[in-house]
């Protein structure tokens, strides 16, 4: 076990130090966040607390990754 593992475990226990939104708000904003992200826009300014929530919530992180991959893949086609 190395220190990065301990840091990760602590991160899971304590969550982000900065303010974050909750799962319901995250789902509500997800489509707009992903479109702005794929367009290269400033998502942190437009959606405060969204990125902090993704670091702290594995389920929302997975759903964000899926929507980004699905919509991003369609844009490439």
């Amino acid at each position, binding site marked *: *076990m*190395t*220190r990065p*593992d*301990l*840091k990760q*475990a*602590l991160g*899971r*226990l*304590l*969550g982000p*130090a900065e303010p*974050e939104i*909750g*799962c*319901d708000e995250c*789902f509500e904003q*997800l*489509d*707009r966040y*992903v*479109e702005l992200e794929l367009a290269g826009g400033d998502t942190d300014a437009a959606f405060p607390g969204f990125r902090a929530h993704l670091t702290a*919530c*594995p*389920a929302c992180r*997975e*759903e964000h990754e*899926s*929507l980004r*991959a*699905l*919509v991003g893949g369609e844009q490439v086609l």
Partner: protein
Amino acid sequence: MEVLQEQSREWLRGLRERDEEWIARLHALLLRAARFEVARRRPTLSHLRGNELEEIALEAADDALMSVLARLDSFRGESRFTTWAYKFALLEAAVKLRKRAWQGREVPLEPESWSLFASEELSPEAELEQSELLQALQAGISEALTPHQRRVLVALALNGIPIDVLADRLGTTRGALYKTLHDARRKLRQHLSEEGVSIDAA
């Protein structure tokens, strides 16, 4: 942009009228998203057969269709309609797959993984610092949190139970559980700060 907005308006018009053709198109779109999610998770679902995965994708698309139709008025045209609709299918599929992966498994609510914090190859000073941090964390979890906060924090953050699975077992919602987790984390940080323990010791 104008073209995309027009496409979204067409979707809304067709679906508000409950036009069968538009509803079938929406179902096909949601099924594509649900299958996409199933395919992404397939490597972790080796115990499920192909037809079971297809059933899950179909159920997710059916449930997402109901959610989308019930929430049409909340679509404000700030993203493409298709992006907005996709998220419902991805959520339904992800939740079903997480629940299926934990079906029949015990959901541990007590700490079973304090060993996560045991580090090797540390200097004696670092080891002491880390053991103080560990003690302060354990004390914070048992003293500063309510029993419900403790169970939720331990299950989600220590034992890695997916939030939807825990919400299901405890008869609550994901949003409510996350609020509990957030409050527990805030209290634990406060406890460590009052004890003068630096989390940089990690």
